[in-house]
């Protein structure tokens, strides 16, 4: 699946860490204040989805806001 061994190993280690983090869910004794907070793996899912939302929104804004580096013509004689 991945092009080289290094990348595969890195991803494997990362996945293991992620799974360990998820499994620690059992240790939590959440004193939940707000509703959805006690869904299983709430923080993991919320974190992942927030990031996806942020990246997509940024790409969208970027369509309007990105310009070439020379946009603000410097070296003015004014």
């Amino acid at each position: 699946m991945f092009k080289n061994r290094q990348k595969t190993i890195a991803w494997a280690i990362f996945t293991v860490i992620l799974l360990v983090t998820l499994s620690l869910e059992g240790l939590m004794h959440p004193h939940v204040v707000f509703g959805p907070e006690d869904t299983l793996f709430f923080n993991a899912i919320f974190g992942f989805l927030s990031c996806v939302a942020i990246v997509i929104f940024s790409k969208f804004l970027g369509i309007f806001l990105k310009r070439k580096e020379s946009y603000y013509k410097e070296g003015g004689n004014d």
Partner: protein
Amino acid sequence: MTDLPIPPAIIMILGAGLLPFIHKYARYFVVLVTPILACAQVWNIPVGENLLSLNIANFELSLLYGHAYSKIFGTIFTIAAFGAALFGLTQSKLSETVSAFIYAGSALGVVYSGDLISLFLYWELMAISSTLVIFASDRKKSKNAAMRYALMHFLGGVVLLTGIIAYISLTGSSDIVAFNAPTSILIPEFWALDMNAIVMWLILIGVLVNAAVPPFSAWLPDSYPEGSAFGSVYLSAFTTKTAVFVLLTLFPGTEILIYIGMFMIFYGIIWAILENDMRRILSYSIINQVGFMVVGIGIGTEMSLNGAAAHAFAHIIYKALLFMSAGSVLYMTGKSKCSELGGLYRTMHVTAACGIVGALAISAFPLTSGFVSKSMISSAAIHEGMEYVWYGLLAASAGVFLHAGIKFPWFVFFQKDSGMRPKDPPLNMQLAMGIFAALCIIPAIPGWAELTLYKMLPTPTDYKSYTTEHVVSQLQLLLFSGLAFFVLLPLLKRTPTITLDFDWIYRGFGRYIVLGVALMSKLPIRIGRILFKKMLKKSLHMISHIHSPDGVIARAWPIGTTVLWSVAFLGLYLVIYYF
């Protein structure tokens, strides 16, 4: 230190004044010792007492007054000055160091001002000296950026001054007293021109300009990357955090700050994600982090105010560390764009390691200073039952890891092989980074926050950050945000572009207005020129018609005849005169 009421600000400024007159190696000594002396003095100053007054023109200036949060801000400002001085010890230009020390000193001056007038004097001194720091930079576009920086800050200063003057004439006192500002006063009915509200807004806006609150924020990402590798470390520490201090002291609990802060947080994240220059990413990150502090101030409970102050403390350290790391890369490679960097972990071990520590700290990873400080604000939000604010802060924490925790180290040190193999920077720079990396970790060792960080807060706090729940939920949040980063990596490719910001108003749009005005003003001149030419031609024609060699007069009266007649008349006159 002593019982003499010497403001820490004066210590720093005197140190700055000494620097140009002493030998190079003595300078290194002075530059490192001055912040330490100032810090010692900070710990000498009690809360609530005015130690030094000056009477000028019937106004009483309190130049050494310890506010509730003066100690924690005074401490971190002197630490930041020390670290930045060490970082640029042999490499900084003299003019840069002198300006930077005056800058740090005036920040301390604001923190220990007891009245609005001395606050304003130090405020303006900060603006001037920080502009000089940018001017001293070796970057090409720094002069232009410094001018824009100066303009924005003087504009903010004028607004602030107007508010202060109005406040003093309204209330008769110039003492620094917290405003009690419920939203109803700040957003008055349109037909009720409440002087109190206007005064408060003027002062608030003046402070918000320095706090880099959008739309007054564009000066920050515009100018900080134009400072030198060393100057920007100073710049990142003082202006915005001084504004945070003033907000803490004057506007605690002002509800509108919660929403302003939330906007700042996400604005910072999104613009940081779009950015290519690594120090611009860090600059937007400053706006993002200050947003957290502003939210904390807005919530206004003891826990959230303490959280904002603790966060400011931790932030100055890890932000300075990040700027040092970026500055080291800039110093050793000459490049600052993510699209041109990468793979530096191979040879810049210390820089990469310290950069990663800073990145983890800003993300509030467990075992870093961010973890034991930032979460106080979210905790306060929970206590006040502010559900959406809390969700917002949670999403924001994920976003912080995304744009600063991973993006910065990844694109600079890993990502692709840029082909460059720079070594780690000179020893003093590595030492400065190492010390600050340690400072990111030490207060975060379980149980140590109470002994170090929390001790400096004005009121005792029993906040416990190392609960299983907090650690596990934070790890989940951050690690899965990291997963999102790598999954979405193709979408995050760095492009050699810039992103438009609010400064487009005066740099982009403003340019068109100036061009239009110039064209319009050229018009009367053009018309005038044309008319003048015509008139000139006509008069020349007339004159030559009469007076030139083949003109009317010349034709009618040949020279000889004229001479004869002149002599005849003169003779006649002579005769008449004598008889």
